[in-house]
Structure formats: structure tokens, C-alpha cells
């Protein structure tokens, strides 16, 4: 038997004796020490200083520095900027944040255009599994939700943004239900809730392990019902400004023809999502094909400041075996119902519901210190003992509550009700992003940013389930605020003149860049 098989056998043998065992929680000091030593955010070699722009002098990872300091695909002298479309609100991105924004802006009477890189709905949102946090139970309260999120965020969260997030949660849940989102329910009709890492009470609304699919399907259907004007396969490649600090539109690229499309808009909402496909520090990712941080690069060049641009979430349980599944997420909810983490010796090493940063760090520690399991492709990982869930709650629990997980692994002949799976942290979420105020407006006038592309709400670490809430709460806020603003202002000139000072600053700082950003898609194509 290989070491791999032997180790797997140890996990099976230990299951009965482990099932009732308590695992001590980390003290604040222990957690701090663990993060400091093992969390990828603390790895100095991975970081560099941003040399130009609003966040000049601050740090972020090399991959993001390259993006921010990248070359524009356009020059200020380039194309003729005659608009093909003139709208009140231009919405960029077809995930949950963009769709929520579009619905609200349209409802407020604005003329809306939505442009997205792939098809409407092809996004990170559609993949969310675990659920959405809303304080609904009588024991719970928005204040408690706030405190949990603040602790989870290492006390760094923007308080005003966070308060609006948790306070609007219930109203937003109602909005979704009225639109036809089918959250799991209890016998008595109340919303069924589950606990998530870092939360002091169960507060996750969900639709089995297809919460994002359910949300996205309904939002997309609602957007199509409203007949909101939509351009798919049309990524934005640069924002337009009046040259005086106001966003006035954007340049899109039609992926079918490679032609540029100029849009003049009174307000712009960037809901372009995350950065997983930049593979920061070489990590595999759980993100969709278009998660390349385009919104960050373009907002920054146009003059919008970023915040917490140095912190990322590495979800502790990304699949590492088989190789074709590397990076794919195994939902945290599976740990909420009792699945344990085990090293090569079959021993537990962390309380499984610590916050994600702590659990991920503990997994990295085990692997760095030789207690990981090596996959045939040479990756390292630890075991996630999912069969334990059926032992604890009765046979069939996995099949009933995690049908998606069961199906994904069965496609590779792995039966998660019988065998543990190997996991390692996967690049999952951008904790920071474009700095916004409580109306979702960035520091660049008339540019609103919502969802994963924005930063501040989650501080230095987002709690599970707070992102789905974020995209709907702030998507809606952005939609409302952008529509209102559009009713108060006129169209302004379309220029790319903001690129000139940016170029000059690069020259002055001696920045030589080989990256053209936004990059739109990861470079996976073999040029062989």
C-alpha cells in the first residue's frame, strides 16, 4: 500500500474514536501567532510596494502590483470616442452585485446598460455553496452579526459599511424571497439556518449547497424579465473620465469582433468581482474564468483609491486530488456539520470552525512541517473526513444536504460518504478592493463599485456567508444611488486624459511594465 492509501486507512480506522472528541479553540494569542507564522498574507517575499497612484507607498502582492502598474490597452490619443450608447447607468459585470444593481437602477427609472465579460450569470456568485448570513433567529441580532464580522475581520472593517451590511440583511432576504429565491425552510415556514466558521450563532440562509446557483438563476431571470439592455462577451477595458476626476463612461471590447464600443454614462457601477485567476503566490483558485481583477486595475488608473488591497482569503478546503479538481471548493458548511480535518497521521490539528484565515494557516503548517499527504501529482494536502458527517447525523445526510459535493466528486469516482478527500487552501476571495462609501461610491466621482471588487466591509478577513449578503446589499445600494445621481447630472465629456498623468508618474518612478491590464482572462493556453 502507498503512504497515501495507508494514511487514508488510518483516517477510516480512527473515525469512531474521534467522532465525539472535542478540539480546543485557539486563544487570541495562539491565533495571532498561527496567522503570523503561516498565513500567506504575512509572507514578506510575496509583497511589493505600489510605486504610483492613489495607494502609492502601500503594499500588495506582486501579482496585483503588476496589474495596477500595468499598461493601458489604449492611449489617450487612441480611438475616436464617439459613444455607441448613451445611458444613465452603465453596469459592468453580470454576477450577483451587478444584477442586483441593475434591478434597482431600472426600478428607480434609470436607463440602464449592463456589460459583462462572459454570459450574464457566469461569475463567482453562481458557484457559492454555503449560504448567506442574515441575523433572523430570535436569539440573534444585527448587532451580534456585526460583532462577529468585526472579530472575523481582525477588527479592521469599516464600521459604517459593516453596520449597513448587517442591518439591511433581513430586508434583503425578504427582497430575494419575494423575487422567488427558494431558501431552505423549516416545517413552520421559518428560514432554516446553519452555522458557519467565526459566527457565534447559526445564521446562514441557504439553498442546499446550491445557494449561489439559486440566487444567480433568479437574479438573472429577473434582469431578463425587466428587459434590461445587455451586452454579453463585452468586457470593459478602460474607464472614461472628464479629465477632472469624474467618471463619464467606459470603453468595451466586443470579444466576437475585437471592435471597441464606447459607452457614455452619467454614472458607472463596477461589479467586476474578484482576482482568483491571478493565482496569487501560485495558489490554485476556486474562482470563475473571468476573475482577473479587471475592476481594480481600471478604477485605479482612473484615480480611485483601493483599500485592504494586501489581504486575500485562502479558503482552507480547496480540493487537491484528483489533479483535475485542484482548487475547486469544498464548502465550509461541511465542517459546520462535523467533518474533521486530519493530517497524514490521522490526527486532528485545529478546531474546524475557527475563522478561515486560522484554519488555512493550520493546514499550511501541517504541510510545511511534514505532516501533509502528498498527491500523485506532487501537491500537498490534509484529509477532510466527510464520511464522518453521515456517521454523526445518519446515513444519507451528505446526499441530502450536499448533493452538489457528492456529484462533483462522484464524477471522479470518489464516494465522499465512504472516503475522505484531500484538501489544501485555495485562493478564494479578495478581502479588499476599491474603497467605497456607504452609497457604494468610490473616491472617483460617479464611479460606484459593488461586491467583491470593493473593499472595507470585511476588513482583513471575510466571514463565510457575508459575501453573498454584501453583493446584494451593496449591489442594491449602488443601483439606487447611481440612478439617483444620474437624475441630477448631465453627460460629461469622454476622455482618456487620466492616462497621461498615470504614464508620467510611471516614468518618473521608473516603472517599466510588461503587463497590459485588465488582462481579462488567465493565460492557460498552451502556445506549444
Amino acid at each position, binding site marked *: 500500500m502507498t503512504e497515501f492509501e495507508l494514511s487514508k486507512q488510518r483516517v477510516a480506522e480512527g473515525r469512531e474514536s474521534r467522532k465525539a472528541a472535542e478540539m480546543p479553540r485557539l486563544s487570541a494569542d495562539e491565533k495571532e501567532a498561527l496567522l503570523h507564522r503561516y498565513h500567506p498574507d504575512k509572507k514578506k517575499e510575496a509583497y511589493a510596494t505600489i510605486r504610483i497612484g492613489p495607494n502609492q507607498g502601500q503594499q500588495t502582492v506582486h501579482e496585483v502590483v503588476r496589474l495596477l502598474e500595468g499598461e493601458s490597452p489604449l492611449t489617450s490619443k487612441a480611438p475616436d470616442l464617439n459613444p455607441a450608447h448613451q445611458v444613465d447607468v452603465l453596469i459592468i459585470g453580470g454576477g450577483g452585485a451587478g444584477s442586483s444593481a441593475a434591478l434597482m437602477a431600472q426600478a428607480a427609472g434609470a436607463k440602464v446598460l449592463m456589460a459583462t465579460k462572459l454570459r450574464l450569470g457566469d461569475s463567482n456568485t453562481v458557484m457559492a455553496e454555503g449560504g448567506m448570513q442574515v441575523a433572523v433567529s430570535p436569539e440573534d441580532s*444585527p448587532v451580534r452579526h456585526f460583532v462577529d464580522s468585526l472579530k472575523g475581520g481582525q477588527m479592521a472593517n469599516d464600521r459604517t459599511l459593516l453596520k449597513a451590511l448587517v442591518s439591511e440583511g433581513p430586508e434583503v432576504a*425578504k427582497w430575494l424571497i419575494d423575487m422567488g429565491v427558494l*431558501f431552505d425552510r423549516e416545517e413552520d415556514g421559518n*428560514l432554516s439556518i446553519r452555522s458557519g466558521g467565526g459566527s457565534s450563532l447559526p445564521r446562514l440562509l441557504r439553498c442546499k449547497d446550491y445557494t449561489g446557483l439559486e440566487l444567480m438563476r433568479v437574479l438573472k431571470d429577473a434582469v431578463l*424579465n425587466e*428587459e434590461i439592455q445587455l451586452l454579453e462577451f463585452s468586457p470593459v477595458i478602460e474607464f472614461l473620465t472628464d479629465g477632472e476626476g469624474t467618471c463619464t463612461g467606459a470603453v468595451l471590447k466586443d470579444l466576437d469582433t475585437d471592435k471597441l464600443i464606447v459607452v457614455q454614462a452619467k454614472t458607472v457601477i463596477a461589479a467586476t468581482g474578484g482576482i482568483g485567476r491571478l493565482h496569487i503566490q501560485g495558489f490554485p483558485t476556486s474562482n470563475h474564468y473571468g476573475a482577473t481583477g479587471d475592476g481594480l486595475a481600471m478604477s485605479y488608473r482612473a484615480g480611485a483609491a483601493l483599500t485592504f488591497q494586501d489581504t486575500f482569503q485562502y479558503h482552507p478546503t480547496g480540493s487537491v486530488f484528483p489533479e483535475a479538481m485542484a482548487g475547486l*471548493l469544498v464548502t465550509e458548511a461541511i465542517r459546520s456539520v462535523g467533518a474533521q480535518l486530519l493530517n497524514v497521521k490521522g490526527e486532528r490539528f485545529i478546531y474546524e470552525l475557527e475563522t478561515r484565515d486560522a484554519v488555512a494557516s493550520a493546514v499550511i503548517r501541517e504541510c510545511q512541517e511534514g505532516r501533509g499527504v502528498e498527491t500523485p501529482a506532487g501537491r500537498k494536502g490534509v484529509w477532510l473526513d466527510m464520511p464522518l458527517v453521515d456517521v454523526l447525523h445518519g446515513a444519507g445526510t451528505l446526499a441530502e444536504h450536499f448533493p*452538489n459535493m457528492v456529484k462533483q466528486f462522484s464524477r471522479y469516482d470518489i464516494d465522499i460518504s465512504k472516503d475522505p478527500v484531500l484538501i489544501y487552501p485555495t485562493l478564494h476571495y479578495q478581502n479588499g478592493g476599491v474603497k467605497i462609501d456607504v452609497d457604494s461610491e468610490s473616491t472617483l466621482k460617479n464611479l460606484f463599485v459593488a461586491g467583491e471588487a470593493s473593499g472595507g466591509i470585511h476588513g482583513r478577513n471575510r466571514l463565510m456567508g457575508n459575501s453573498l449578503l454584501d453583493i446584494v446589499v451593496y449591489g442594491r445600494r449602488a443601483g439606487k444611488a447611481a440612478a439617483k445621481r444620474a437624475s441630477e447630472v448631465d453627460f460629461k465629456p469622454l476622455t482618456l486624459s487620466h492616462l497621461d498623468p498615470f504614464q508620467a508618474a510611471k516614468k518618473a518612478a521608473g516603472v517599466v511594465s510588461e503587463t497590459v491590464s485588465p488582462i481579462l482572462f488567465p493565460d492557460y493556453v498552451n502556445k506549444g
Partner: protein
Amino acid sequence: MTISQSVAITVGDEKHTVPEGMTVIQAMWHLGDAMVKNVGCLGGACGACAIICRLPGQMLPKTALACQTMVSEGLNIRFLQGDPSKKEIAPLPAETPSRETVFQYYPETRRCVACQACTSACPQGIDVMVGVREAMIGDLALVAERFTTCVMCGFCAAVCESRIRPHRMGLYARRLAGAFYPKPPTQLDMRIAEISSGQFDREWNDVMQAAQNA
């Protein structure tokens, strides 16, 4: 490290050799195609990568999601280009819905001849035909449950001789079932009332002050 073996696959009409252990999408990248039009989530949830595929020993092809399918020796692959079926503009009604509400927008649902083609075509393993029959008898809650895992790839509609659009009907039934859930979420309604009546205001003051100082 294991030494990687090669497998022969056919994409459309072209034959290729690719390393074993890749998904069909990874194999396409390996072959030099970025697949922008056929990739979305890469996580089996969006349906952008729907394919029809067949192994040498099989008589009939089956449907699958290319981001969730490993290449294997002799695999024959065809990519689907989107879902051409029409989505009706179907708003939610004001009154409690019945099967007539569904038929109003998707009247062809009544024409199902129970041929099972849709069920065999579903890459998600949904018993689509049963979902359509459940709609015919008007049990929208069952229809809703049936289509929980639908990724809206449109294969079911593509194969239906009766020109039914099961997935679109199913999504509409889901939205109806969600919006008109028979029992209200009382706790949620109470919480909304508590928040708007300012019940947490004092607690907020204390916590915000403490948090500013932290």
C-alpha cells in the same frame, strides 16, 4: 510524480492527443484554444461548457459539463453553442399561482408525450420528464424541488420533440414556489419590524462607540 500518459480524443471532427488526467476544458487549453465562449464558472454550476460526448464502446452519446469531465481514450466531444430556446417575459403574478399561471407563459408544457428524451439529455441527472409531468398536474412545489440543480444548459429543450422548454418552465415554477411559499418566514418578518422600529438603536450606540475605540 507519475509519468503522464496520452489519450486520443476527437473534438468536432478533429483528432488530437492530450495528456491524461485533464478535464475536457483543460485539454482544449492545452490544444491552444482559450474557449472564451464555452467557459464560465469552471465549477460545474453555470452550464456554459455543455458538451455531447461518446466513448468508443457506447452506442449513444451522453451530455456532460466539460469542466467536470476528464478526457479518456477515444472520447468524442462536441461543444454546444449556448441555449437558443426563448425565455418568456414572465412576471410573478399578484395572486397565488396555479398550473394555469405556468401554462400562460409555457403552454406547450401540456403537450408532453412522456418520451423521456429530456431526462436522458440532462447532464445534471435531473428526471426532467417527471418535472414536466408534475407541472401538468399542477404541483409546483414538486416541480421546484425537481429543478433545484438545473444549470440552465438547455439540453432538455433541445431534444424535446414536443418543443417544450422544461428548464424555463422549471425556473418559473421555482420562482413561483419561492415567492408564494405557503408558510411565511415569521421570524424574518419580525426581525424586519424590530429593525425598522429602532429596537436595536441603543445597542448600536454602545457597540459603535466601543468599536470606534477598539
